[in-house]
């Protein structure tokens, strides 16, 4: 690569060598062969090459110039797209917020639209309730023939009596008595809401404590239970409770499938 005028050893480095041999060696070679320059710059060949060079420069410049607006257009379009999508996102967020607020408002008023819906749900045992009332504890005894044992009908009658003396919510061994509740014997055990319960039986009733207890104790059924407790080993207790909590009935025992509301029947 080194020219006649420069030996590679003289060059300190590659870059220097490049700078030193900047002019193509061929110019010197031809020059050496032909002392007088045979061809001048003013030839068609040189003109053609220069024309080609000019064409290349022009084409490149034009190409770059025409490409730039396209790139800019693309960028602008992208930026607009981004802005558009941002505004859409903002809009949707606003929509979400307003819808959330609407849902909040509606759910706040939903319960109030149906009159006494809370009371209805409490009555149908769909929600847990709490309040004062009585707690009756019955521990049957198997040793005294039939009198000391407690049957399903005993509990049915007892629950009935409690409704009669003013109970508003009743549960038997934590099984809430609702509209679909049955109390019956299955095999050896008594079932409430199809769940087996075992003695001792605890019946909780919510209501006005005084009347509830007094009327029950004074009733024929209450006297009968007391007599059974006195004559056998059966234990029967009725105590007043200032605050007790009755849990809601299991969901499958409060679902209605076939019965529909008949609006026209009042």
């Amino acid at each position, binding site marked *: 690569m080194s020219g006649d005028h420069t030996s590679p050893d003289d060059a300190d480095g590659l870059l220097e060598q*490049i700078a030193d041999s900047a002019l193509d060696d061929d*110019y010197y070679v031809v*020059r050496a062969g032909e002392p007088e320059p045979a*061809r001048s710059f003013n030839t068609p060949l*040189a003109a053609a*090459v220069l024309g080609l060079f000019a064409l290349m420069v022009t084409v490149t410049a034009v190409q770059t110039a025409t490409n730039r607006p396209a790139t800019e257009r693309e960028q602008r379009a992208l930026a607009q797209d981004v802005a558009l999508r941002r505004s859409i996102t903002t809009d949707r967020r606003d929509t979400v917020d307003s819808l959330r607020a609407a849902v909040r408002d509606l759910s706040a008023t939903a319960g109030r639209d149906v009159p006494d819906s809370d009371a209805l749900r409490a009555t149908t045992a769909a929600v847990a309730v709490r309040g004062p009332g009585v707690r009756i504890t019955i521990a049957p005894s198997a040793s005294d023939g039939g009198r000391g044992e407690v049957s399903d009908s005993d509990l049915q009658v007892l629950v009935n009596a409690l409704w009669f003396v003013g109970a508003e919510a009743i549960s038997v061994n934590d099984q809430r008595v609702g509209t679909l509740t049955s109390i019956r014997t299955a095999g050896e055990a008594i079932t409430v809401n199809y769940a087996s319960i075992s003695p001792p039986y605890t019946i909780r009733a919510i209501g006005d404590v005084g009347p509830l207890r007094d009327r029950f104790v004074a009733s024929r059924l209450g006297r009968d239970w007391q007599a059974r407790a006195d004559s056998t080993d059966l234990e029967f207790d009725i105590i007043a409770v200032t605050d007790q909590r009755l849990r809601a009935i299991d969901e499958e025992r409060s679902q209605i499938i076939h019965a529909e509301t008949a609006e026209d029947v009042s």
Partner: protein
Amino acid sequence: MIPVLGVVIGVTIGLLLQPSVPVVLQPYLPIAVIAALDAVVGALRALGERRFDDRVFVVSFISNVLIAAFMVFLGDQLGVGAQLSTGVVVVLGIRIFANAAAIRRRIFHA
């Protein structure tokens, strides 16, 4: 005056026709232009030193352009297109500056 005519014709054709370079060749065009510029500046220096030869000019021009384009192409295939382009530009740039300096010296100090 023929070379000037050639330049004018080249510029005119480029401006009038505005030929669009194929996308495949677009990366090579700037490097090719730099290589061509090197050949042109070298030719000008040779002209000043009375060594000019149009045959050498043509050969150096075409070979410069082709080799530069080929190196960029090779670099692209090897995944070092940008680095190789930089190398080509650096080397050609040094040559252009050196030749331009020689011309400048001849004009102003000779």
